[in-house]
């Protein structure tokens, strides 16, 4: 459980540290000395970003716990390391490219370059979809070579981890689809579209980071 605890320690230290800092030198019983904190919004940033960051904390907790379970389960005698299909490397490249293109699209959105949005969004969609399809094909390849989910625990974790990651990608695709729909159909004003793309980009980078950690772990164990 060390992995989960370590991750949790970081999150809680940040959150609780910030909370304590907010509260340390206050004398709440003294009236009308209004520190303008609430006026600014303590995290001077928009609510959707706060919600996304919270969601990322939840998702990180989820994956950290699976990794803790992975570490624990690995200790038991019947673990046979899985040799991952080479296809996964290609899929990884797809995901990296998707992140890069999303970042480019996001920059375009923030700078008001509307013409770049449609090709950018469509390209990220294509790249991400090829990642997901590639993952599925990798599953097929494993099945074909007799590496089933029940064959041994390393396999089970492989399918679980890649499946869970893909599910989160698909969730992101839903938001991507809405943003792309708005851009293509010409609805929505520039700032709300920019914000939506910004949030998607952060989410995509996050899932890329998660994938790199998962992939690294799967390769090395």
């Amino acid at each position: 459980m060390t992995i989960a605890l370590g991750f949790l320690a970081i999150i809680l230290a940040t959150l609780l540290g910030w909370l304590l800092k907010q509260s340390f030198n206050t004398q709440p019983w003294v009236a009308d000395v209004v520190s303008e904190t609430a006026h600014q919004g303590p995290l001077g940033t928009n609510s959707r970003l706060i919600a996304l960051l919270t969601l990322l904390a939840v998702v990180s907790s989820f994956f950290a716990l699976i990794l803790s379970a992975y570490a624990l389960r690995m200790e038991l005698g019947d673990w046979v390391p899985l040799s991952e299909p080479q296809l996964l490397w290609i899929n990884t490249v797809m995901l990296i490219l998707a992140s890069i293109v999303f970042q480019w699209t996001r920059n375009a959105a923030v700078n008001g370059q509307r013409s770049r949005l449609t090709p950018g969004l469509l390209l990220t969609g294509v790249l991400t979809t090829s990642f997901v399809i590639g993952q599925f094909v990798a599953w097929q390849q494993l099945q074909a070579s007799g590496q089933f989910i029940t064959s041994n625990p390393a396999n089970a974790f492989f399918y679980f981890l890649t499946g869970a990651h893909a599910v989160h990608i698909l969730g992101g695709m839903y938001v991507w689809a809405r943003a792309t729909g708005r851009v293509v159909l010409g609805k929505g004003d520039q700032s709300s579209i920019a914000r939506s793309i910004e949030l998607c980009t952060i989410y995509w980078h996050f899932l890329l980071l998660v994938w790199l950690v998962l992939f690294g772990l799967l390769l090395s164990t």
Partner: protein
Amino acid sequence: MAYVAIADRDHEIEHHDPQTFITKYIWSQDHKVIAIQYSLTAIFVGLIALGLSAMMRLQLGFPDQFSFINPENYYQFVTMHGMIMVIYLLTALFLGGFGNYLIPLMCGSRDMVFPYLNMLSYWVYLLSVIILVISFFVPGGSTGAGWTLYPPQAIMPGTPGVDWGILLMLLSLAVFIVAFTMGGLNYVTTVLQARCRGMTLMRMPLSVWGIFIATVLGLLAFPALLVSAIMMLLDKLVHTSFFMPAISLMGTDPGYTGGSPILFQHLFWFFGHPEVYIVALPAFGIVSDLLSTHARKNIFGYRMMVWAIVAIGGLSFIVWAHHMYVSGMNPYFGFFFATTTLIIAVPTAIKVYNWVLTLWEGNIHLRVPMLFAIGFIFTFIHGGLTGLFLGNVTIDLPLSDTYFVVAHFHMVMGVSPVLVVFGAIYHWWPKITGKMYNETLGRWHFWMTFLGTYAIYLPMHYLGFQGVPRRYFAMGNTEFMPDSAQDLNAWITMSALFVAATQVLFFINMIWSLAKGPKSEPNPWNATTLEWQTPDHPPKHGNWGHELPVVHRWAYDYSVPGYEDDFIPQNVSADDAPAGRDHGGEH
């Protein structure tokens, strides 16, 4: 573009009021309506669980007298009672019910930051409840694995509900976690972003702090339950071996290789322990507000109370294996967790001292909410003290899986938070409904419930000391259990049925109040917190009318020396406070 706080761009935001009956009361995005939807659903399913506990007690008190209770369905009652009460009642009620109602009002906002997501979270919660209830009716019935769902038994034949019940249970939990995450995002974002002008974090009432930190705990801890649920589903459906060891079943080989049941326990309790604080922290916060309002006195040590809530929240993640002392783990492991468990008792105890000190020399009004709040202090001290016993490894070894544990967790989770729930409902009833309840009926309800729960759980500790095991359908004929233990069981059953029946008084009171109760004034308790200062009573959609409130002081300006009234609402500035001769100095 610089950030402008939600409260400061209130006039630019378009406010749409729902127009139709459906959008006002069914597909409602208003946090108050959603709160009531959550609460009614939670209470409904909680009554089902209460009925299940009555059946359990019938078997325990009068063994083999009832033909409709056999070992299979007894364990189904035990499991469903536990799971419903902990998750579908207490968590949903405190966070979905009270959290939704109180957070925007107490923070001075018009609604949650994401009203559509809020609405979705309720309907997904309802879906999870429906899936759970369906599990009663599938072939084989619901799971009988205990609310802790330990493998390998949970998914092996011999345990009730192994065909469908366990699948629906795990699915229902997964759906609940999705609902909870949606709600949790709302509560966290609203507390952080949507407070009105002047409402700093340290001016928020403790109710909000309790619910806020509980939400953070839930967001980080529920994934552990989700992970274990998915893994158990895979073990059951696909025959992986995350948890299932290499066992043989009645001479056959079910095909599992060497999984680890202990892995499940770690994952489950990593969720399970924060879960009990998710239930307790909102209760702690709410009871602080009940005590200070009805004692006309500021909560003693507000900052310490906030830090204690935060500390309890953080520490709650490193005590989980005190539920696993008897699992065969390394004794040093046990030593570590016993230490952290004792450490977490410190901020908890500080809170208890502060509650008592709040009452000390207070102008105590023994109204119904106050009775329940004081009842909480008694029962929580009681349950917390027995927790100290169980937190120490050596004493836990003989007491584990006995009725001592059952008595402990019912006192701290079943009795104290439920007393707070009742106190809170009585307290905020005038605000939510605009009507007043019947005081006499409320008092009867309190005394019968409070004394009744003592009658149930006090003797149960003794049974635990005797060694009477929990989760047993029948005690059989053993020497260490004298016949008097059976008499005690019968007494406990009679008390339990009595207390269960008493709750009818509460429902009669509420229904009478809705139908015929007197209208209440806008602020019958003369409370300082913002929810009592709304222009409409009960608050309308949008809560505050044209202007959001501006906060000038904390939530606990009760009996401030030098002022005419014994309370100053949060949104009253220093100039407007009706002052006496001289303004009070520091206190």
